[in-house]
């Protein structure tokens, strides 16, 4: 699994983004799932996770010009911003920001990596299987709704669901 120890390859991408902020796309794509997972583990609703993730990337883009390369991977910088964003958010609800660090020590990084890998594997599914997985588990649609959208029978959708999950299990076994 990737850890915070790696990431030297980020340097060039950061310099490119500092030169032209459009190049932030690559950094965004590489780190989006991890930042989302980092935040989602610490909030209770998808809406909160989306709002705060959005804030992290807006702040990161706004201050990318000030980023100074010190050998740490870019994601570490993003986690720093995320912690500030979460701290401010938690203070509204009377939680103590110190819990963030404790959570990280308790294996939070492994779960974030797992989710990032899983997100990539979902992307690698066939279009039909990916659609079923996204609709069913992320958008929380019913089998009937998905069947109607794809003009397939409910039985066919359930079989696609089964094959997609089995594919993810196999790929996950190879990756982790």
């Amino acid at each position, binding site marked *: 699994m990737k850890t915070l120890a790696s990431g030297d390859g980020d340097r*060039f991408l950061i310099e490119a983004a500092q030169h032209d902020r*459009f190049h932030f796309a690559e950094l965004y794509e590489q780190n*989006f799932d991890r930042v*989302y997972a980092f935040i989602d583990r610490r909030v209770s609703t998808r809406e909160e996770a989306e709002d705060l993730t*959005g804030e992290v990337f807006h702040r990161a883009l706004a201050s990318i010009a000030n980023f100074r390369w010190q050998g740490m991977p870019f994601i570490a910088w993003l986690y720093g911003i995320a912690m500030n964003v979460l701290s401010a958010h938690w203070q509204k609800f009377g939680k103590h920001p110190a819990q963030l660090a404790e959570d990280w020590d308790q294996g939070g990084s492994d779960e974030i990596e797992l*989710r990032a890998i899983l997100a990539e594997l*979902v992307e690698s599914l066939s279009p039909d299987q990916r659609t079923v997985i996204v609709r069913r588990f992320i958008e929380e649609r019913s089998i009937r709704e998905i069947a109607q959208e794809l003009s397939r029978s409910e*039985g066919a959708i359930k079989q696609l669901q*089964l094959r997609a999950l089995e594919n993810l299990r196999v790929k996950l076994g190879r990756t982790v």
Partner: protein
Amino acid sequence: MNQRADAESLDRQLESVMAGVNVKSSSEWNELMAIAANVRKLPDPNFRRRLWGELLDDCGIHEPSHPQFEQVTSATAFASMLPTLIGDQSAVFPPDHRSFLVSFVSHTALIVLIASGIWAGGGKDVLKKAVEISQLTYLPTGDGGGGSGEHNPIPATKGTAPKMTEHQLVPPLIVVRKPDPVLPVQARVVGPPDLKLPQSNQIGDLISSNVSIPSNGSGDGGGAGNGSDTGLGTGPGMGYGPGSDRGFGGGPFRPGAGVTAPRAIYEPEPEYSEEARKIKQQGMVVLSVVVDQQGRPRNIHIARSLGLGLDEKAIEAVKKWKFTPGTKDGIPVAVQVNVEVSFRLY
């Protein structure tokens, strides 16, 4: 158990996952249930796209949105879309079907032209490529150069280089210490003899600011200029110019000083290699390119590799690019740039 029954059985258990209820599933579904539970925590792809759109707005780049068009099939809807053609409208003037025909033909032709342009561009996998200037290089006709001097604090006198020769007998000197040699030999700089350089009566460095005081310059080596070895100019070597070795040309030029960057004006996009597509390899290839005075890419080298055939695809594409050449003091010159080619799969 057949697959249909398996699918039904799994789905019944997944219903509990969707309801957020912890149930004890049969061991055969344990892993799949766990995966499903984790997938539920993944970000919504729509959110991912939406957020990127917002970030582009932050950059001042407005990406066109992708509105959902409703399918219009009924005659009523059609009439409401094209009231002038159908005649079911409240227009002041009666419908003229010829106007529609002219409009239809001209718009179709326009769409075909635009579509053919997009098709000719190819490479739909490529999100963006850009020319980034990292180092400007002054390369009028080659990559050689040279220079020398005699530790004189006064820069070498302004002038032109002597002719080129393959074998230098006498280095170019502005201040000649022994004006009457027994065997007079013309001073030369080393380079292709057929390379014609501007000539004048005054040997010297063309870009020097010293136009009046005779000086061999601050370098060392026995020639003239600020460099070393027996050439002329600011570089190390036996040639002429700010470069090194022999010939005429320059090494790295300092940014600014009237040098402008080349600008890409025709940028056919690279294709994805099959092997990279298979494993969904994405990233950026950086190529070092010299854009010559005619705006053609030359001396293409890989500065940052992605592998899996993407480097070759990037080179293949950039070879076809056309540039407006960079200029120095308004005159087109060869300029070295870094070209970044991003490969991204949608």
